[in-house]
C-alpha cells in the first residue's frame, strides 16, 4: 500500500481551487484564439477579444477570471493501492476547498439548504466523484462549475427507437433554446447511456476532457464533430448576440444501458471552461 496523508490531499485541493479559477488551461486558450480568427460577426469578435483580454489579466494578477467561482466539483481517481492516513478523506477535500476559497479571495457561492438558502461561508461542501482505479496514484481534478451554465443543463430519458437522430435533435434543440444564457462559446458535455444518475455524471465528466480531444470510438468522434458543426450553424454566437462561434467543443461519453432505455444528459460549460488536475 502507498500512504498519502489527508494533509497532502487538503493542500492539493486548496491549490487546485485557486489555479483552476485564475488560469485557463492551454487547450481552452488555443480554442478561444482560433475562434477569434474564425468569428464572422463584428460584435462576436469584440466579445471574444474582451474574453481573451480578461483571461490574460486574470492569469497575470492571479484573480478569478469570473466572479462566479462556482460550486466545486472534485473528480478523484484513486489507485486501489492508495491508503489515506491522518484523517477523513472527504473532510480533507472539503477543508481544501474552504482554504482555497478563503486564501484565493474566491466568491463563496454555496448555500447550506436548497430552500432556506443560508450561505455556508466557505464554499464547502464540494461534490466529490470517486472512481477506484488500478495502481498506486491519486489523481484529483477540481472543476469550479458556475451556475449560469449549470442551470442550463438537463437529463432526458429517450426511447431507444429515437436513436442517433433523436439524440442529435434533442442536443441541438436544447442548445438553441438554452445556450444563450449559458455564456457561450460553450463546451457541450453529452452523456449517453448508463442509468438515470449515471448519465449526468458522464455528461459532467465529458467536460474534463481537453478541448481538441476526440471520443476514442470513431462512431462517437464523428458524432461530436457533426454536432459541433450543427451547433455552430445555429448562429447564437459569443454571448448569444449572433455569430459563428457558439461552441468550442462537443464531448460525448457513453456507457452500456438497459435494452429498454436510452438515457441522455447535457451539461453545458461556459467559455470559462475551468479545471485543474494534479496527480499525487
Amino acid at each position, binding site marked *: 500500500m502507498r500512504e498519502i496523508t489527508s494533509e497532502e490531499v487538503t493542500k492539493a485541493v486548496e491549490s487546485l481551487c485557486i489555479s483552476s479559477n485564475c488560469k485557463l488551461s492551454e487547450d481552452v486558450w488555443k480554442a478561444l484564439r482560433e475562434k477569434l480568427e474564425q468569428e464572422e460577426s463584428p460584435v462576436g469578435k469584440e466579445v471574444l477579444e474582451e474574453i481573451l483580454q480578461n483571461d490574460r489579466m486574470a492569469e497575470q494578477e492571479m*484573480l478569478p477570471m469570473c*466572479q*462566479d467561482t462556482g460550486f466545486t466539483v472534485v473528480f478523484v481517481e484513486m489507485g486501489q493501492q492508495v491508503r489515506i492516513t491522518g484523517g477523513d478523506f472527504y473532510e480533507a477535500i472539503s477543508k481544501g476547498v474552504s482554504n482555497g476559497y478563503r486564501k484565493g479571495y474566491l466568491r463563496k457561492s454555496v448555500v447550506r439548504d436548497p430552500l432556506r438558502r443560508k450561505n455556508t461561508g466557505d464554499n464547502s461542501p464540494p461534490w466529490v466523484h470517486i472512481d477506484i482505479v488500478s495502481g498506486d496514484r491519486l489523481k484529483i481534478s477540481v472543476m469550479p462549475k458556475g451556475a449560469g451554465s449549470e442551470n442550463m443543463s438537463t437529463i432526458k430519458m429517450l426511447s431507444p427507437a429515437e436513436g442517433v437522430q433523436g439524440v442529435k435533435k434533442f442536443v441541438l434543440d436544447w442548445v438553441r433554446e438554452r445556450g444563450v444564457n449559458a455564456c457561450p462559446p460553450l463546451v457541450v458535455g453529452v452523456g449517453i447511456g448508463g442509468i438515470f444518475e449515471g448519465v449526468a455524471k458522464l455528461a459532467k465528466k465529458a467536460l474534463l476532457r481537453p478541448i481538441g480531444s476526440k471520443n476514442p470510438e470513431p462512431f462517437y468522434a464523428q458524432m461530436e464533430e457533426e454536432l459541433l458543426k450543427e451547433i455552430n450553424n445555429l*448562429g447564437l454566437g459569443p454571448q448569444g448576440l449572433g455569430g459563428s462561434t457558439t461552441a468550442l467543443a462537443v464531448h460525448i461519453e457513453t456507457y452500456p444501458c438497459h435494452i429498454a432505455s436510452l438515457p441522455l444528459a447535457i451539461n453545458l460549460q461556459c467559455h470559462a471552461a475551468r479545471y485543474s488536475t494534479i496527480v499525487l
Partner: protein
Amino acid sequence: MLNPTKLETPLYEETISKLKIGERVLLSGIVYTARDQAHKRLVDELESAKRENRKPLLPFPLEGQVIYYVGPAPARPGMVIGPAGPTTSSRMDPYTPGLLERGLKATIGKGKRSKGVIEAMKKCKAVYFVAVGGAAVLISKKIKRAETVAYDDLGPEAVYRLDVEDFPLIVANDVYGNDLFDEGIRKYRKIQE
C-alpha cells in the same frame, strides 16, 4: 470597441431613445448592484407600500438610474472591488417591469430578457445593456469606487453603489422593442428552422 457612444448616469429618455441595438456604449457614473435576493426585497417593499398606501422606503432612488446584475467576488486588500462580471438577467425578469414603472432607465446583465420585460422597456422607455459574461476582471478595473448601501446581510448579493468609468456595454434591447439576440442570431443562422 468600434465607435462607442459615451454615456453618463443618470440617464434621460432623450438620450437613451437614440440608442440602437448592437451599439457599443461606454458608461460612466453611478450604477447600483442588485440580484435575486435584493430584487425580491425591493419589489416586496414596493408592493407593501402600495397596499399600505404609503411612500416606499427604497435604499436608492430609481428615477433615471441603472441597475447592474452582479455578485462580485471578494476584494483583495487594496482593491476597490473583486472581479465583478454580470450574472444571468432572466432570473430578474419577474421583478424588472415593476422597477421600470418606477423610473429605472437601464439594466445591465448577460443573456436574453423575457417578452414581458421587452414590452415594459418599450412602454417605460428603458434599455437593456449586456456586459460580457465572464469578463469579470476587466470590468472590475472600470469600477472606481464601491460602497454597500443596503442589505449587508446578503454578502455578495448586497446592494452596492458603484462609481464606474467607461464600463464597456452593448445595447441589447432599445426603447423600440428591438432585440439584438433575435436579430443577431437570425443573421448568422445557417440552418433551416
